[in-house]
């Protein structure tokens, strides 16, 4: 089975850019080569700039959504019970909200303080770093272990060990992560009842919470990267340069690592954006489910008005904090967007000078 993953933004930005910078020349020092290098740097820069512009647009759009006026008229029944609510959207109120927000930002010079007088910025940052503490290791593990597993799958695609390879990768990629998480938790509970392990499954303040959450979060990236690596190696397999290398007597391992993997790297990296997006989605589920008090957890609970509210007031008018979280999350995505773009350009350029 193949999980088809189109990379939405990437396809838009990189199609043009890849077409240009892929055309490299093998003659170092030739004018053609120099021209292409310069072009490569330029297209790299313009790709970074266009990514930043798109990031800005998406953030603006999210900001617009978060600042939708909350003027809900609650209809109260006897004893303040909830009978219903009517909502009436007015553009003028929306504009007013946006103006107020920017004035607020300018006046407080940060994000201001919450009801208790603590600075919101500091809280957001602490919580956000807590999220990064599980998110970044998951991505790094995903990348390294994923490529390793991809190579394993590829090397064993024809041997008896094949059953442990690609089918397992695809299988784990197809079933919802929560199935794996629940299985792990049930196993832990089973072992606990037999007095073998003592791991707390919920919370955020212990090392084991962090480690378990990294484990949960890294399942998808590992399988995703592994699948992409396998596909890439498979595609490189029949190409002329591989046959040439083999016919010249280059060892199988050397061909695999030095030639095929290096050439396949841009392809693998180009999917990192999709992987990061998906893992961030997963971060919500893992944090909310395990009560790991990171940024996604708080964002879910401040946005929680979708599932919880009090009559008379929406559950959390804490829009400022939400905007802070959204800003930081989209910034992370932008970072990975640029990293993957730059890495891709670098690999392509090195190709050119080889």
């Amino acid at each position, binding site marked *: 089975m193949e999980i088809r993953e189109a990379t939405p933004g990437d396809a838009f930005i990189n199609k043009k850019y890849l077409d240009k910078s892929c055309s490299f020349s093998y003659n170092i020092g030739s004018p053609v080569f120099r021209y292409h290098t310069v072009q490569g740097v330029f297209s790299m820069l313009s790709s970074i700039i266009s990514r930043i512009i798109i990031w800005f647009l998406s953030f603006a759009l999210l900001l617009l959504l978060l600042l939708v006026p909350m003027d809900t008229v609650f209809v109260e029944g006897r004893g303040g019970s909830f009978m219903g609510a009517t909502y009436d959207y007015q553009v003028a109120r929306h504009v007013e909200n946006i103006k107020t927000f920017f004035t607020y930002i300018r006046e407080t010079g940060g994000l201001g303080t919450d009801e208790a007088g603590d600075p919101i910025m500091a809280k957001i940052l602490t919580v956000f770093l807590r999220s990064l503490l599980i998110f970044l290791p998951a991505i790094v593990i995903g990348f390294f272990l994923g490529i390793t597993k991809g190579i394993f799958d590829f090397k064993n695609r024809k041997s008896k060990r094949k059953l442990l390879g690609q089918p397992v990768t695809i299988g784990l990629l*197809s079933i919802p992560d929560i199935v794996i998480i629940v299985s792990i938790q049930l196993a832990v509970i089973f072992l606990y009842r037999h007095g073998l392990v003592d791991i707390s499954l919920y919370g955020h303040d212990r090392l084991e919470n962090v480690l378990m959450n990294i484990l949960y979060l890294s399942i998808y990236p590992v399988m995703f990267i592994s699948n992409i690596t396998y596909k890439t190696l498979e595609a490189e397999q029949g190409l002329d340069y591989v046959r040439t290398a083999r016919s010249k007597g280059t060892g199988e391992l050397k061909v695999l690592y030095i030639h095929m993997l290096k050439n396949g790297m841009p392809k693998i990296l180009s999917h990192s*954006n999709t992987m990061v997006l998906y893992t961030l989605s997963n971060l919500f589920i893992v944090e909310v489910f395990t009560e790991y008090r990171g940024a996604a957890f708080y964002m879910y609970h401040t946005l929680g008005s979708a*599932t919880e509210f009090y009559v008379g007031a929406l559950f959390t008018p804490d829009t400022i904090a939400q905007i802070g979280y959204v800003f930081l999350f989209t910034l992370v995505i932008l970072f990975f967007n640029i990293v993957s773009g730059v890495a891709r350009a670098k690999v392509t350029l090195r190709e050119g000078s080889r």
Partner: protein
Amino acid sequence: MNRILLTGIVMTGIVLLAVLFGPSLPLVDKSMDQNLVVRDSDGALLVPPIPPSDEFLIGTDRKGVDLWSRLMVGARETFYILGVILAVRLFAALLLSIGAFYSKGLRLLMDGWNAVFSFMPTIFIILILLAVPGVMFSDYRSFWVLIILAAVEVGRLALIFYENMEYQRRQTYMEAAVANGGGRWTLFRNYYWPSLVRELVITAPMEAGRTMFLLVQLGVIGIYVNQQFFSQLDRSYRAVEMSDAWPVLLGNLRQDIYSAPWIPIAALIAMTFSILGFYILAEGLKKRQAMKRRIQS
């Protein structure tokens, strides 16, 4: 012999069976009575959730409703939700991609849509959109939730269809079709549309799997399609899912893992089974198309 396709057909067939004949299947209690207190064979009293036993094949939920009945009866509603999301999504994506293929303006819209959405994780944007009060308190909330769940993936899907048409355009035989004087409509009817249909046949089960995947994720964090607000002890109101759909069984996952693991296990098995069924079906259909092409050439 295409074994993958066969497996896919059998698996989706089983799911379809539950959807069509769920309430009349054996061991299904259509009325879904709540068994509040049950006496076991030794005469001891049991309160729900009751673990799997002779009387309740896979146990009961927290209200004492037989879980097997609930799964079978709930299948129809689950796949009704899934079907609506899928239909809206595919239809909108087809329109957008065909539009983008012929009009530069729509092309820009599609690319822009995808670029902007590439900065928003799916769950993230769903949460933000659902929290908009206009959606949250709408009398047609279920409708809006379905639309939002469908819309978040339209851009990505449109891109797949668009690339299919672009690929078709690059084929050499298309030049012949153009040279023979094929007009825009003729080309679309005879070349692009059939190619899109071939893509659709694979994409539809694939998307069905993905949608179910999304419903699982949303179920875990407590977001359902049909919900009503109910008063809590602290005078706050909490959304409570009123339906028998499968994702609802995941609502209490954290406690259930400790005290009644059979509830989430049953729900997860049912949903994972259908996800795998859809993916395998898509893969089998893809293989079938590839084999057909090989025979033709």
